[in-house]
């Protein structure tokens, strides 16, 4: 039995693509100057930064002037929500966020709530979908901004972004889309989607860590959340991560190039995997609407089994998977996403997420299946609840 490390947690992060790394290294010499400097070295760095912006914006379907580099998804989400809220005080002091958002969006909304904003949650249905009807319900009485992600990090469920954006606009609200998990998995076009803000981060699509971006539709008022110099056209102060931005552009180009093929390949792996899993392990519950699932993500619970114990047991066998959402200390708590979908708390506490990537092969999923069966069996034979009540 092989104990070599098997990574099946690509929704948490991805390794830097070697080609991207190589190209970043090749052009590092042009990138080290400060783009704000007047002199030649600064201009050279500025040129590379703007090249990155242009190449990235082409891929997203926006103008370079609408794309702002940040440190990553969390910063982009915070900038969108808070920047929009504080940037347009005439708008209603209400913010609507979906119940299945990433903690970056929920945390930003919570900050705004503490500053007096009325925060409303947009409900998700049992399939993990936020419908335009649910959004409209939440927007009765208006809002400054509504936020719904493009694809969910835990369930992999794709959201009807285009219809949601239209519904938000019909109620006079701006629309922010956290597309962090969507890049490289679904076609993304900000004009087609009609979003006002959109967040992304490079390390989810085989780019470098510490660089992300926020699309801000031209002409929207926005209050900067980091003050200092006039970087990023006064919307995000701080010396630019030039080589990171270039890496983001390269990684996104490659991800878009591979997207259709990878989608098909991973669909071909994950659908039979789901069938085999359900057949092999009794009491398996799948989470999320199966027809709206991105090909790389499988979320499930095994009745009577704690997710954490499975994750640790698999880790001890060299297999990396995720359970419910991780909190700051690393302890796992029942996923707010699954709870919002109406999954019973006991089942939500047992949730596991398998997320596949470019190097995932059928052999890997066969190995996962082989290891899972005995682990689930052992855990069920122990029924830990018994002793906890002693």
């Amino acid at each position, binding site marked *: 039995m092989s104990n070599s490390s098997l990574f099946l947690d690509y929704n948490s992060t991805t390794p830097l693509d070697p080609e991207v790394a190589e190209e970043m290294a090749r052009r590092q010499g042009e990138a080290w100057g400060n783009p704000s400097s007047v002199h030649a070295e600064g201009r050279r760095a500025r040129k590379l930064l703007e090249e990155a912006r242009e190449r990235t914006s082409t891929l997203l379907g926006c103008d370079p002037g609408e794309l702002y580099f940040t440190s990553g998804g969390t910063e982009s989400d915070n900038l969108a929500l808070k920047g929009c809220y504080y940037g347009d005080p005439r708008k209603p002091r209400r913010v609507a966020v979906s119940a299945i958002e990433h903690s970056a969006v929920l945390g930003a909304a919570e900050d705004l709530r503490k500053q007096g904003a009325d925060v409303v949650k947009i409900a998700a249905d049992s399939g993990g979908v936020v419908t335009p009807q649910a959004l409209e319900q939440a927007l009765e009485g208006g809002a400054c901004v509504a936020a719904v992600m493009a694809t969910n990090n835990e369930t992999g469920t794709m959201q009807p972004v285009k219809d949601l954006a239209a519904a938000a606009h019909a109620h006079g609200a701006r629309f922010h889309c956290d597309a962090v998990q969507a890049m490289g998995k679904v076609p993304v076009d900000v004009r087609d989607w009609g979003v006002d803000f959109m967040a992304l981060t490079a390390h989810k699509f085989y780019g470098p860590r510490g660089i992300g971006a926020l699309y801000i539709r031209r002409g929207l008022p926005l209050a900067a959340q980091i003050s200092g110099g006039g970087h990023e056209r006064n919307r995000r102060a701080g010396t630019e991560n030039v080589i990171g931005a270039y890496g983001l552009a390269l990684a996104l180009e490659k991800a878009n190039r591979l997207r259709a093929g990878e989608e098909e390949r991973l669909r071909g792996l994950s659908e039979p995997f789901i069938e085999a899993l359900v057949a092999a392990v009794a009491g398996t519950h799948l989470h999320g609407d199966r027809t709206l699932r991105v090909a790389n993500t499988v979320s499930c619970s095994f009745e009577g089994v704690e997710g954490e114990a499975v994750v640790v*047991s698999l880790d*001890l066998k060299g297999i990396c998977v995720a359970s419910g959402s991780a909190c700051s200390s690393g302890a796992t708590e029942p996923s707010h996403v699954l709870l919002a979908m109406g999954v019973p708390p006991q089942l939500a506490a047992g949730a596991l997420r398998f997320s596949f990537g470019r190097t995932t092969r059928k052999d890997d999923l066969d190995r996962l299946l082989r290891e899972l069966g005995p682990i689930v069996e052992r855990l069920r034979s122990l029924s*830990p609840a018994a002793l906890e009540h002693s």
Partner: protein
Amino acid sequence: MKGPVTSTELPLVLVAMSGGVDSAVAAACLKEAGYPLLGVTMKLWTYEQVGGDPETREGRCCSLDTIAGARNSAERLDIPFYVMDMTEPFRRTVIDNFIEEYRAGRTPNPCVVCNNRIKWSALYERAKSVGAEKLATGHYARVRFNHDTGRHELWKGCDPRRDQSYVLYGLTQEQLSATIFPLGELMKDQVRAQARALALPVADVPESREICFITDDNYRRFLREQLPADDPARTPGDVVDESGRTVGRHEGYADFTVGQRRGLGLSLGTPYYVSSIDPQQRVVHVAPDRDLYADTARVEQVNWVSVAAPQRPLSATVKIRYLHPGERAEVWPEGDGAFTVRFASPQRALTPGQSAVFYDGDRVLGGGLVSHPA
């Protein structure tokens, strides 16, 4: 990424890591001995739950700092490390019990409860659930197998100043059989030296001796926050002296423990101490020091850890609190599961709710909870 578990004769061990030096060295000892290991820090409570001054929080057990300390030690030892959330069972068993005991006019020892109900219960279950057969901690105590009796025995740790067997008397045979105390034979100085030799990041972490979830060491503040305002334990009542005379008022009997002098606000000429607490009448009884001595104690919920429950009286050295030196005594079975301890000489401030632990030399025979005097 952590090294995979290598195939070996030795069983997989879950080592409970608190972020302190002891458990880190315990893990190091097991690693050295060749055991496949996983390190676990339990998240037992949250600051939102237990309150306290934020400035006193740094470095407390369960803070992000101490979890990071445990994680760093595990990294250094190259063992897989996990944080496991036990806040719910901890609240249900340890914290609720702590509050209930004070409401009942007793003075609990939450570490005893935590060992029985969390570490060797909920955590031990998690160990089994991930395939670990043994549980190890950094306690200064020893487990020995007695071939004559066929029983696993609990013994004091070799460092007399660090011995923690007092808080472990509640373990069962099954629990003891699955337990490893790697520090049992070591002196604290050796443990610190080994931590430095291994460059463990926790080598110089100061030790915690107070109650982990009372972050400011102010249990009165904790109880005030946890108990409803109209709880009897928070309601003013009389302070009554040994002659039955009311000599003062108190703001709630939960503020007091037997033997305490502070906070009574009495000026009776001679020093007076709490002699007992009557939760029904909300009366705090006080007496001069000489009246605090008693030569018997009733002990309930007794667990005989190393020996079978005795049917006849038995001689032992009995400790009535963690730092008590121990006193010669006879332990008499009462037939109802409780035991009466008759001390060779009267003991000061026998405190209901504290544990009385029976020793035969360095071997722990058993122990239980001191009850209210009849």
